[in-house]
């Protein structure tokens, strides 16, 4: 057992750190460092900078244009990007649909879609959840009926993150209504410009427009946009859910936010309050422990490939830590957290803290609620 990174890994960390410091545009870094939402162009700009360096797909193998990194390198990369104030990678293309395309897509599909994801020429979004199917994904109701060389798709997707920016949506659709739950589902790629696709914003409690409803009315989708086999979509969906969980612990981001919390608390004199100082210490300790737990899972993955149910541990603790940090930041500024989206009231760092706290409540709900994660742990790890 050796908890140290190797000299090569440390050198790589230095390289990434330097790259981020030199290449990340200052306005983007400032926004990220202060918890401000980025717009589409800013995300695209950073992705293209990474792509130019050959780092556009950190988790991708070399054959598809990725750097072919080991998990430890991916981890270091994400940690340094987060620490340096780089935007989170746009996961829907890079981490969700791309692995599915690589594993189950046809060579034509791979060539058509993957390069544009790397180059940020096409933005993807996810069409999994439906109004009646949040945690219970397999009860998807959106119907796709084959007519000649097209599927005609009708239904409604929801909680579609950043769908307002998307060129494409990957969808779970029901192709066999007679089959039992999981077995009649297919996996379709749909052009957002198709007639019949309507995106309606969902405004969240923090006043942000991050998620959407996507309505599909008689949308015609060419059969070549089917991934793999018809009615086998659940297999690909589960595969994707597994991959979505890489870096699920969010260590790099949590470290960056913890540093922000400590700066704010220090500025507000709150670390002189022993209770507040103890709360900050508690979350810092939890994060140290989670980082090691995360590295242990990564280390085990070298032999076992896909993240197992241990990822549920990372999801729960990771989101709890991020939520605790957001809560403490808001708490640290006291009354000045109350002004809502007012950049000209109170100290600079106060403006986003309450909305940040509100926004972070999503972390324990989305991506498989923490209750679902506990089901997974008790059933898959403990066998209950």
């Amino acid at each position: 057992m050796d908890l140290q990174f190797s000299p090569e890994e440390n050198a790589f960390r230095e390289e990434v750190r330097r790259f981020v410091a030199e290449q990340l545009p200052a306005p983007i870094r400032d926004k990220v460092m202060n918890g401000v939402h980025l717009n589409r162009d800013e995300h695209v700009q950073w992705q293209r900078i990474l792509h130019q360096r050959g780092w556009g797909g950190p988790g991708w193998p070399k054959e598809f244009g990725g750097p072919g990194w080991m998990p430890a390198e991916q981890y270091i990369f994400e940690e340094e990007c987060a620490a340096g104030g780089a935007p989170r990678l746009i996961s829907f293309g890079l981490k969700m649909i791309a692995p599915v395309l690589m594993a189950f897509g046809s060579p034509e599909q791979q060539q058509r879609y993957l390069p544009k994801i790397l180059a940020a020429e096409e933005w993807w979004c996810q069409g999994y959840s439906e109004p009646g199917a949040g945690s219970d994904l397999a009860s998807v109701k959106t119907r796709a009926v084959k007519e000649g060389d097209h599927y005609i798709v009708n239904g409604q997707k929801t909680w579609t993150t950043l769908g307002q920016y998307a060129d494409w949506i990957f969808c779970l659709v029901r192709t066999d209504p007679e089959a039992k739950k999981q077995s009649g589902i297919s996996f379709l790629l749909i052009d957002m410009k198709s007639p019949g696709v309507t995106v309606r914003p969902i405004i969240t409690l923090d006043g942000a427009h991050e998620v959407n409803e996507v309505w599909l009315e008689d949308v015609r989708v060419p059969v070549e946009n089917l991934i793999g086999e018809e009615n086998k979509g659940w297999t690909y969906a589960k595969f994707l859910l597994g991959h979505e969980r890489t870096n699920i612990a969010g260590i790099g981001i949590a470290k960056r936010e913890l540093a922000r919390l400590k700066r704010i608390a220090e500025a507000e004199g709150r670390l002189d309050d022993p209770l507040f100082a103890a709360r900050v210490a508690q979350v810092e300790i939890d994060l140290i422990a989670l980082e090691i737990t995360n590295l242990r899972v990564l280390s085990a993955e070298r032999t076992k490939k896909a993240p197992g149910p241990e990822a549920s541990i990372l999801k729960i603790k990771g989101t709890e830590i991020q939520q605790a940090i957001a809560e403490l930041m808001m708490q640290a500024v006291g009354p000045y957290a109350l002004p809502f989206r007012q950049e000209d009231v109170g100290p600079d760092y106060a403006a986003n803290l309450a909305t940040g706290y509100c926004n972070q409540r999503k972390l324990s709900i989305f991506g498989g609620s923490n209750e679902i994660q506990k089901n997974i742990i008790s059933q898959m790890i403990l066998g209950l």
Partner: protein
Amino acid sequence: MNFDFNEEQMALQDTVRRFIAKDYTFEKRRAIRDSVAGWSREIWQSLADLGVLALNIDEEHGGLGYGPQEAGLVMDAFGAGLLLEPYLAGAVIAPALIRRTTSAVPGDTAAHNFQEEWLPKIAAGKAIVVLAHADARGTAVTEANGKLSGRKAVVAHGGCADLLLVSARTADGGTGLFAVTPGAEGVALHDYPTLDGQRAADIIFDKAPAQRVDAGDTANATQHAIEAALDIGLAALCAEAVGIMEATIAATTDYLKTRQQFGQPIGRFQALQHRMADMLLHLEQARSMSYLAAMHCTSEDTTARQRSLSAAKVTIGQACRFIAQNAVQLHGGMGMTDELMLSHWFKRLTAIEMSFGDTDMHLQRFARLSRAA
């Protein structure tokens, strides 16, 4: 020992509940929130017509002469509808303060005149008076030659005041209370929305003309009077929180009964049932403490009063946090949307926890006062 409200009290609360249900719907509230002022004079007048603005004012000055229990019943009823109008600031704290500061010295005619001028106007809904006191950052205002200079931050409903009562450090090092007209020269007021959809203001005074209205700060009388008025406000705030939490739990229970996942209502899942039980435990403990706060907030024994109110604020603050977070969690994505009342309750409960001193502050104050006692 009797925890029942009398018929008059029940009728009062019923009246307010009916008003909220009928005249303060989700849509109506949203329109008010999105208006320029962020509150409605028309609603304010309706509240005056219902008599609730006169509740906390003595009969001598055109009020009904009720106490903190009735104020609590009204605030509890406002809770479910998330009233945006400045009831707490204008109809609870201001009358309590005017009553206490301007009558400290018997026979003070100027003070008496101040009461006679303003209390009837408040009772009738003709004037909104708001206290601008220190926030946690302690931004100070000082008085010199009848003029105020300095800054008050995050003054709840400061923007809608017809008259501001401003606490300021006087030349002799004591605290004075001054009446300032918001439109006067030397007063710059920045009004903005807060997390909960209500309004607050940062106010800068630059040699603003002010009339002293307290009867002098002998033995810290003015400071004590301000604290006493704020404690009456805190008790009312606790009652509001209980009303919101009750509504939040009711809505979440309904949601769990109807929302289907994995072939059954999610309320059948034991882990969620137990979470709801925990939420109910918080609510009932909070309700108990809101009664305690109402009973003790007018006590003359400052230490006992502050100890009880700190205990109440800790219990209620923790309940606000737990219930708000878990109600959203149990609603899943729906809990995050601006479209459901739930997220608005969440935000108001969050704001309440941070107002009047947060949980940690009160927990430590309680520990200090308990040890001293």
